[in-house]
Structures are given as structure tokens and as C-alpha cells.
């Protein structure tokens, strides 16, 4: 079908308003927050930015941030997708514990490492399916639907481990987590691969568009022919598998499954990262790169606190204040004031 633009319908021309400024670039404000935190580090800990090669491996606090942030980054990415479709997944911490327990038990059962990995991811996929089914098929509100697995899942993990920390030896899993690929810690490589894959799924297929569409307006999406249930379930599947991968990383890291503590309260950090990256919990947008920035903000904060020598009873207060400042920095009135100042200086 061709539509010739009739003269009467030419888009009206207007005097263009001021060109958009750099500060409207979405990643600007989260990046600014990250930069500020790192700047403070430069003062409190002089060696913070040194990166050396130790035994062929990159070594330094900055690498630690990436390295320690990897599991959270993976979980937060899955969370970003769920939130994009206007959901939320509180169960990721429990799924991490389940993945760790399953993995450990299977290693002890003598299964080959790649098979263990596959089976573990399959179990976390099933966890995601459970969440997705509750939300999409039974129509239970996401917070509550995933709260069920949050509570029960950790119990399941403990049951699998019989309540103890089960340790194991596995070169394969050590390589995945604490090993290195070239000079880069393999965890960072794993996280990067997960990001690349998710980016491809979200931006190189229409899934991302459908997720955002369902998040923005589920009823309109249904009327546009989107299978909203399928889309919703697939977001929880992605989040489940992401948590499973994080579970593998965390469990491999300590070479043991700690069902009580693995991934405890990780869901809050993940949600925090997504929001610090600028996304709205009301859905409609999945920001992949920005989520990573959010994770780096949180992790560099944690690492800075550890490096700074602050007594631990102040950890939470510092975290609260920094999060709060990041939020303020991203709040519209403050943004306008700040960019107004920058603008005024430049003109």
C-alpha cells in the first residue's frame, strides 16, 4: 500500500527548540554518579586505580569491582528484563541458592561438569517457569508470586544440602569462576557473554520490543496481537536462568554451596541497580548498558567501603547516603538545576 503525502497533510513546520543537550543522554547521570564514587576512592585509597598483572592475571581494586560485581550484574540484567515487562522477581536470591545446591549435589553424584552446568541451568529455568506461570497464568501479583519462591526456594536449597555447607572440588567450575581467560578473570568474561547474549535477544529479536510493549500497556499489547502471557513468562525464564548463572559463579567462587547465605538479599541489590540505571519499576523500558552502570555503582560502593577501613556498623549508613545522593542526582528538579548550571557556564 502506498500513501502519497497530500499537501494538506504535510507535517507542520515549527521553529525548532534548543537542541537536546548532552545531559539528556540517558547514561549520563548514572555515569556521573559512578564517576563521583570513584573520585572519592581516589582520595581515600591511593592505590585504588592501580591495575597490575599478578601471575598473568589482572589485579587491583578496579578489577575487584568488576570481578565481585559479576554475579550481581548477571542477576540485575535478568531483573531489568522482568521489570521492563512491569514485573519484579524477588526470588533470585533463592534461585541462586537452589542452583548452588543442585550443582553441588550433582558434582558429588559424579556427573560430568558440563552436564552439571546444564542441569543446574535447567533447574533455574524451571524456577523461572514457576514464577512466570504464577504471574502470567494464575494472574498473581508479581511481588507476591515471587515472594513464594523467595521463601520456599531457600528451604528447598537447604533441603537439598541437608542444611550444611557442602564443599566440592571441580577444576571446571573453578575455571569458570576464579580462573582467567587471558589476563581477564573468567567471571568477567562470563558476565560479559551474558550481557552480549541478552543484548542480542532484546535488541536483535523483537522480544525486547514486546517486553517493553507489555510493560507499557499490557491490554493494548494484547489487542495488538502480542502474546502477553508468553512474553511475561519468558521474562521470568530469563531472570531465572540469570540467577542460575549467578548461582554457579557464586558457588564456584567459594567451592561450596551455602544454601543459607548464597544470594541472600541479592534481589534488593539487583532491583537497586536497575533503578539506579534509570529504569522505572512501572515497566516499559529495558536498559541493558545502564543496568550495568547501576551494578558498578553498587559494587564500587561496597568495595570502597571495604577498602576504606570504615567500622562495619557504618556500612549501611554510608550505603544509604550514597544511594540517596544517586537518586537525588537523577531526580528531575536536581538535574534541571545542575544542567542549568553547566549550561549557564558554557554560554
Amino acid at each position, binding site marked *: *500500500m502506498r*500513501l*502519497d*503525502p*497530500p*499537501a*494538506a*497533510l*504535510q*507535517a*507542520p*513546520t*515549527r*521553529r*525548532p*527548540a*534548543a537542541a*537536546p543537550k548532552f545531559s*539528556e543522554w540517558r547514561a549520563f547521570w548514572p555515569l556521573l554518579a559512578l564517576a563521583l564514587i570513584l573520585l572519592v576512592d581516589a582520595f581515600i585509597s591511593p592505590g585504588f586505580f592501580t591495575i597490575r598483572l599478578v601471575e598473568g592475571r589482572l589485579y587491583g581494586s578496579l578489577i575487584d569491582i568488576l570481578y565481585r560485581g559479576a554475579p550481581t550484574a548477571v542477576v540485575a540484567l535478568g531483573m531489568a528484563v522482568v521489570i521492563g515487562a512491569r514485573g519484579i522477581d524477588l526470588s533470585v536470591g533463592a534461585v541462586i541458592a537452589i542452583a548452588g545446591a543442585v550443582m553441588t549435589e550433582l558434582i558429588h553424584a559424579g556427573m560430568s561438569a558440563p552436564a552439571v552446568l546444564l542441569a543446574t541451568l535447567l533447574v533455574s529455568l524451571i524456577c523461572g517457569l514457576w514464577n512466570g506461570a504464577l504471574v502470567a497464568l494464575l494472574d498473581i501479583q508479581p511481588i507476591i508470586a515471587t515472594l513464594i519462591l523467595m521463601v520456599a526456594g531457600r528451604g528447598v536449597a537447604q533441603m537439598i544440602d541437608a542444611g550444611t555447607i557442602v564443599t566440592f572440588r571441580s577444576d571446571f567450575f573453578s575455571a569458570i569462576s576464579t580462573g582467567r581467560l587471558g589476563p581477564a578473570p573468567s567471571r568477567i568474561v562470563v558476565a560479559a557473554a551474558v550481557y552480549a547474549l541478552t543484548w542480542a535477544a532484546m535488541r*536483535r*529479536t*523483537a*522480544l525486547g*520490543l*514486546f517486553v*517493553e*510493549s507489555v*510493560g*507499557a*500497556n499490557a*491490554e*493494548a*499489547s*494484547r*489487542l*495488538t*496481537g*502480542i*502474546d502477553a502471557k508468553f512474553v511475561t513468562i519468558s521474562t521470568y525464564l530469563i531472570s531465572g536462568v540469570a540467577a542460575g548463572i549467578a548461582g554457579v559463579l557464586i558457588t564456584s567462587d567459594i567451592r561450596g554451596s551455602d544454601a543459607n547465605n548464597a544470594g541472600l538479599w541479592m534481589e534488593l541489590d539487583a532491583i537497586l541497580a536497575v533503578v539506579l540505571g534509570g529504569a*522505572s519499576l512501572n*515497566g*516499559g*523500558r529495558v536498559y541493558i548498558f545502564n543496568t550495568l552502570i547501576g551494578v558498578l555503582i553498587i559494587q564500587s560502593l561496597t568495595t570502597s567501603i571495604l577498602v576504606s577501613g570504615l567500622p562495619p556498623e557504618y556500612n549501611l549508613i554510608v550505603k544509604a547516603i550514597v544511594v540517596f545522593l544517586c537518586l537525588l542526582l537523577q531526580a528531575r528538579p536536581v538535574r534541571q538545576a545542575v544542567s542549568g548550571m553547566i549550561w549557564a557556564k558554557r554560554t
Partner: protein
Amino acid sequence: MQTAKVELIGISKNFPGVVALDNVDIAFQPGEVHALLGENGAGKSTLIKIMTGALSRDAGAVLINGKPVELDSPAAAQAVGIGAVYQEVNLIPSLSVAANLTLERQPRRFGFISWRKAAEDARVALKRLDVSIDVERPLGSYSLAIQHLVAIARALREDTQVLVLDEPTASLDAREVERLFAILRDLKARGLAIVFITHFLDQVYQIADRITVLRNGRRVGAGPTSALPQVELVSLMLGHELQAVEERRPPAEAKAEGEPVLSVKELGAKRVMAPFDLELRAGDVLGLAGLLGSGRTETAKLVFGASAADSGAIRVDGKPVSIRSPRQAIRLGIGFCPEDRKREGLMLELTVRENIILALQTKRGWLRLLSAAEQEKIASDMIRALGIATPDADKPVGQLSGGNQQKVILARWLVSNPRVLILDEPTRGIDVGAHAEIVALIRRLCAEGMALLVASSELDEIVAFSTRVAVLRDRRKVAEISGAKIERDDIVQAIAAP
């Protein structure tokens, strides 16, 4: 009654990338209906949002009775007697009708709300508009038109001195419009200043005393209605003369022939729609006419599978099919452009481009994403073809003006190129220029072999493009008029017949 005169002086408003208003002066006198006209995106809604405290302005002043006032919230505007009905229904669907009507002015006893009295007040307020509905049901359970009437009833509170109505008649049919106008005349006589935005020029001449025309955010003309003949008005709005509107007859309706693309037998749902039959051939435009609540929207939704039918059979190309969800309908080549764009049509956070390609993309499935270049092209083609006023295709659609949003939904379904297209109130809120073009478009689509089912409250429009008209009354199809016989009066008669 104390009456107020509202003056807006030098109002400017910028949005990122758009100058919505540029130094606009306007004054609203008591005892006058003042029509605010202009193309889609001209800045009408923005102007009244500034005047009612819903938006902040970048420059200019608002004066009431000569005194500057700072209206920083709608509550502040209401406090000085400005009542408004905005373009989109801005009420709360989850609350009861009574709660909506009485919000912030609930009758209280000893400081506590008396809900019984509130319901009573609500019934009285609705009675003025001739609406009698159960005021304790949630507002969202009523049709868009009823919701609009409730919004109007809400704005008509006793202490209102300035009444602002942004396209109040867009979803009303002739009977309701008459009723509303009678009330407006009464209010005018009592000295209210009334601001009235519409795209129906005949309504302007029926009711307005004075006209102001906006174009591209500037005031381009103003004066008493009597001094502005329609042709002049239109060219003021558009910036040039409207091309001669084509003859108001569908092209040789003989085109519609062959096997029906879509045929519906005894389709119905209890309490919603009595079973009905429909047939659509390639080249057909079947108009759905009826009064408010007669079941036009429900008919459309049943055919599209958006509401569940409990009886009946549908055939596509003669083959029996089952349509139980919009997805299935779309797979069979049916498209549906809903009436309530805010709730059922748009993804407000998504960009214009994404909103436009969405239906086409769902048709292709999630694996075969349209490339960025294809998306760009489709979107910019449609933006040009329908004259969607937006600085670029990557603007969130929520930032477009109402009429332009409507065009985006139309564009979405046009690019998906269905064989059967169902349009529910397709021209709601669309300006004169675009209106003529959309009517022409419907006729062209039908000439190209698409089958259309169009529900509309505008009889003239239905007459202009339909090859056949189905008339509905009380959730039942009561007549079908076809061929050269389609005349406005026939339809009116069929609607009115007992």
C-alpha cells in the same frame, strides 16, 4: 453570580524539541463560548493545561479579572473557579462513579464523608446530562462516552465560573451533543466563560460566539464567529486552503463482490450483544451506526476476538475459523484500531516509531525483527503520509497531542496491511484537514480491496464512506442499509424506530 474574565498574555511553552506555544495572547469573556481551534498539535491542549494549572508555562502571565494569578496546580485553578474537562478522560477508573464525581468535595457530616449523600449528589449531577447509571459501580466499567459525560458533569460544579472543555464532543453522538449544548447555552446565560475546543466546525458555528485559531503554537487569528466564514477559518487553521473535499459518495459500490472475506453468523455474548450476522467482501466498507452504548464497540471487539463470544461462527474466505483472541484474528489478517487510545491503543512510553511498527512486527513474529532501517523508513513514511506532528520518530508517543496519537494508532494498523480492518471511532480528535484525508484514505483502502468495518458516532462520516451501514440499537443489530439508499435520514430513522 460573580463572573470572571480570564486573560492569558504572552504565553510560551517549550517541550524538548518542540515549541508548543509561542507568545500567545487570548482573553475569555464572561457570558461567551470561546472556541479554540487549530490543527492537531497546534497547542490548544497545552494552552488550556497552562490556564488550568496542569502545566507550568515558560513565559507569560495569567490574569483573572485583571489580577495576575499563579495557578501552580489544577487544585489552585479550581479554587478560583476554573473547571476543566481534558482531552483524555482524566478520571479514576478504579473508583466508583460517585467517588469520581465528588472527589475533593464530598459531603461530610462531622468531618466524615457521607457516601449516601455523595451518591445522591452524583445522581443529581448526572441527571443534568440525562445520564442515569448506577453511580456505585467503578467508573472503568462504563464506556468511554459515559466516562466523558461523567467528566463533564464533574466540571459543571456550582462555583465554576470558567468552564474549559477540550474536545468534549469527540466521543459523543448527536443526541448527547445537543444535550450538552443546551446546558452550555444555559451556563452562558448565567455568565460563565466557556472555552470550547473541537474539530467539528459545524459545532463551532452552532455554539461559539468567538473564535481563536492557533497554528504551530502561535495565534494566527481571532474574532467573533460571525466575522469568520468557514472557508476562511479552515485556511487560517491550515495555513492554506483545504483542497476541495471529494464528492461525499463512495465510489461505485459495485466493487464489493465475490466471496465474503469475513462472514459472521449469530455471533453474540449474553448481556453484551444479541447474536448478529455480518458479511464483509473485499472493497466493502461496513459502517456501524447507533447511539451511545448501542453496542458498536462490542460488535467490533467480538469480531476481533477481544471480547469472548458465547455463540456464533466466523468464516474467513468461506472457511470456518475460531477467533478467541486478538492474536488469532491478526493471524487471519484482521486488524483493529480501538476507540480508547489511552487504555487500549498506545504504549505511551514507547516511541512513535515503535508504536507504528508494533502490529507489523507481531505479524512477523518475535524472531524476525524489522531492521532499524526498515523501522525508520516505515515510521517516517507514515509520519509524512498522515501528517503526524512530531519532531522525530523517536519521541515517546505520550508526548504527542491527542489527535496525533490517534494518527499513530491508525498508522500502526495501516502498515500491518490487513485484509479486514476494524476501526472504532477512527477520527476521534482528528483535525479538519486530516479528517478529510482519513475519509479519503478509507475510501482508497476499500478501492484497493481491503474490507473495512468502521464504527463511528459521526453520521456524516459514515455516510461519506460506507458502502453499507449496520444500525445498532440496544445491543442488537436492527437494520442494514446498503447501496445508493444510504442517506443520513435513513440511518436516523433506523436508529430511532421503536
